[in-house]
């Protein structure tokens, strides 16, 4: 990337769009842009767009995982920030599945699914076998 202009991010049309939302949080804006690039170029999600959250004063992204899939909300946030349960609720109340994305200083991205209500986890993977006493005794002797 070093042969390109160093301000390529600032000149990117998607960045300009997000900037025009005027959330007044340049750090969060930068984080949102990095997530945008990851979704569009790396993961190849569809119809990625940006929207402002008036309650939280942040840039949110909307995208579909693939053609014909349902829209999801992606909430980018610099990793050292804090948030409240209420703010997560406000993003969920938009009515779409939510992905929280933590953006580190080195541009590492960590996505975390947030869901509404009580979602039972996946059960442990089988097949299961009764190991029996001998197995337990063996394991103990190894220590």
């Amino acid at each position, binding site marked *: 990337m070093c042969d390109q202009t160093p301000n390529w991010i600032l000149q990117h049309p998607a960045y300009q769009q997000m900037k025009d939302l005027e959330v007044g949080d340049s750090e969060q804006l930068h984080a949102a842009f990095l997530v945008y690039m990851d979704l569009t170029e790396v993961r190849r999600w569809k119809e990625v767009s940006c929207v402002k959250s008036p309650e939280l004063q942040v840039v949110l992204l909307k995208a579909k995982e693939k053609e014909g899939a349902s829209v999801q909300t992606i909430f980018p946030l610099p990793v050292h920030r804090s948030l*409240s349960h*209420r703010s997560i*609720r406000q993003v969920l109340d938009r009515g779409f599945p939510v992905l929280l994305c933590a953006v580190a200083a080195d541009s590492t991205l960590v996505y975390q699914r947030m869901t509404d209500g*009580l979602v039972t*986890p996946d059960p*442990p993977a089988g097949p299961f076998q009764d190991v029996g006493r001998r197995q337990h005794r063996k394991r103990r002797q190894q220590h």
Partner: protein
Amino acid sequence: MEESPSMDDHQDSSLVVGVGLCDSAPLLWRLQDLKTVRSLGLVGALLGSLPRTPRQNQRLGRPLLLLPEEEKLLRDEEAAGALPGQNQDVGGVELQRRFEEDQQRSFEEQSVLALEDRKSALLRAMTSSHTGSESGAEAVDEALRRRLEALDHSFTFPQSAMAVQLSTARAGLSYCPEARAHLQANWPIREQNSPRSDARCQVFRDLRGRGFFLTSAGKFGGDFLVYPGDPLRFHAHFIAVCLMLDESVCLLDVLAVARLGSNVKKTVLLCSPT
């Protein structure tokens, strides 16, 4: 809690459990109380050592420690009463005196038996080493007699050598007196009422009301482990983390607890009272 008139006295008195306080820890000692509390959907945590399998902590025994939320729930449903403290036990002095008498008697019996034991051992040792030598028989007898006399005078049976029998079967915690003080406003106030503990309490009640069983989740860095049924039959599905709606948490902490949850196959629940 409605008390149906057809229930006999033993049954409806078992709906109130006796909570013994050890410092500020609410403990249940009696078997019936543990059963009652489990039937109400409260799990608690067993703390005691089992007398026959002491040096392990996979299986523990009574007493049962209640969570502050569990104790509060019992209190609010008027299902808990305070057990009087141990030093108010009138029968204790009598029991102790009888115990000491028994110990003394046992010691005296054992002393006698120990002396006899020693003498017969001495006899065996001295006679066996001189079998077959006819001429020295008289001398041996004389020496033996002298040794036995000396033993009689000098033998002492130390207290520390005494064998003490401990009855472990059904040793029971039945010394708890039946009388109980039904709870009034003078229940000792021990809780620190912070907003966090209030949040925990409301979340506990709500989830319990929906039929879930909850236990402490210290091992997982959360507030409660939420089971869809009795913990003896199910694995926990959720780790509940209680906070206020507007409480600020680090994003790193959210990620950490979420990652932990997925590693142990449990969904993390962020719970706040509205």
